[in-house]
């Protein structure tokens, strides 16, 4: 007779354990860390560039870039003033996981930094399932993607600590119902902090940068 053995274990538990180790390591070095997620083209790298332009004078910032191929984004981060930029090529994987971030952390002397920005692979589905061990998860939505994204990608909108709404300078040209968008966000992630901004005009970046600074200064 076969015997039924109770397991009741989260399937992502192996990744979650490694994420906890990453978290302990980042925390011990006193660095504040972000996991930036978004669909391709939402403006992750642009938000990082604008953040670096405003903060690289006051903070020591490291950027870890996840992409399926190329080091274009890490190069852009370095050019924009990141003191260290590490490229992780996932070789086809559609997300970063805790093991990949651990590999990148081993290449960084974390104590040398105040802020660590991890740019995830452009994807609105998979990165939500893989915790990395950063302090905050941030989703960058953008106006051209459309106002229905919270409804179509609830997993991603549910799990984040802050939401950037990028490219608001395009609102006059695109049929994007902000009320409809925000109702979806509110149902999935009540009270989540939002930062409507434009990397082109600079509008709203001040609040985003202030939030980052506050998190860095008040410790983790």
């Amino acid at each position: 007779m076969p015997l039924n053995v109770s397991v009741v274990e989260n399937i992502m538990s192996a990744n979650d354990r490694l994420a906890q180790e990453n978290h302990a390591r980042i925390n011990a070095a006193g660095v504040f860390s972000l996991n930036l997620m978004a669909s391709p083209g939402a403006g992750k790298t642009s938000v990082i560039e604008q953040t670096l332009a405003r903060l690289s004078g006051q903070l020591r910032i490291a950027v870890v870039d996840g992409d399926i191929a190329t080091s274009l984004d890490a190069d852009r981060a370095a050019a924009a003033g990141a003191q260290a930029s590490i490229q992780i090529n996932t070789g086809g994987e559609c997300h970063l996981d805790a093991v990949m971030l651990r590999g990148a952390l081993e290449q960084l002397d974390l104590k040398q930094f105040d802020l660590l920005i991890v740019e995830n692979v452009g994807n609105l589905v998979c990165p939500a399932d893989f915790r990395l061990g950063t302090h905050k998860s941030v989703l960058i939505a953008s106006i051209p993607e459309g106002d229905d994204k919270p409804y179509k990608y609830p997993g991603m909108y549910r799990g984040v600590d802050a939401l950037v709404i990028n490219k608001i300078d395009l609102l006059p040209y695109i049929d994007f119902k902000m009320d409809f968008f925000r109702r979806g966000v509110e149902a999935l992630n009540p009270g989540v902090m939002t930062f409507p901004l434009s990397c082109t005009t600079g509008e709203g970046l001040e609040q985003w940068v202030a939030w980052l600074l506050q998190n860095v200064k008040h410790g983790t």
Partner: protein
Amino acid sequence: MHELSVTQSVLEISLRHAQQAGAKRVTDLYLLIGQLSYVMDDSVQFYWDMIAKDTIAEGATLHFQRVPAEFRCLDCGHHYPVDGENLACPNCESTNVRLAAGDEFRLESIDIETAEDSDVHLKEQ
């Protein structure tokens, strides 16, 4: 998608629990997957047949139990399914709601054969 890493995780967890229970063979796995966890049953079974080869879980059958996503309204207590179009409470239109079910992603249990079972098989043969 990431079905391969998911399948590797399932294999690691099931082998660990099977070993603890003194299993000689794992025959069935019971997975509980919420509607909001994106995973394709067929691809997981496909990867399973490849990576479980030469382990005690080779040839095991994966059973997927799906859990529909459901919201609970904090204002009026109403439970309702997630229909994708309107996430607000259909009863009172509040968006003060919480996910009550649908994000499960667990290996619930496994069926195993132990050494004694194998002995029985041998005797029968």
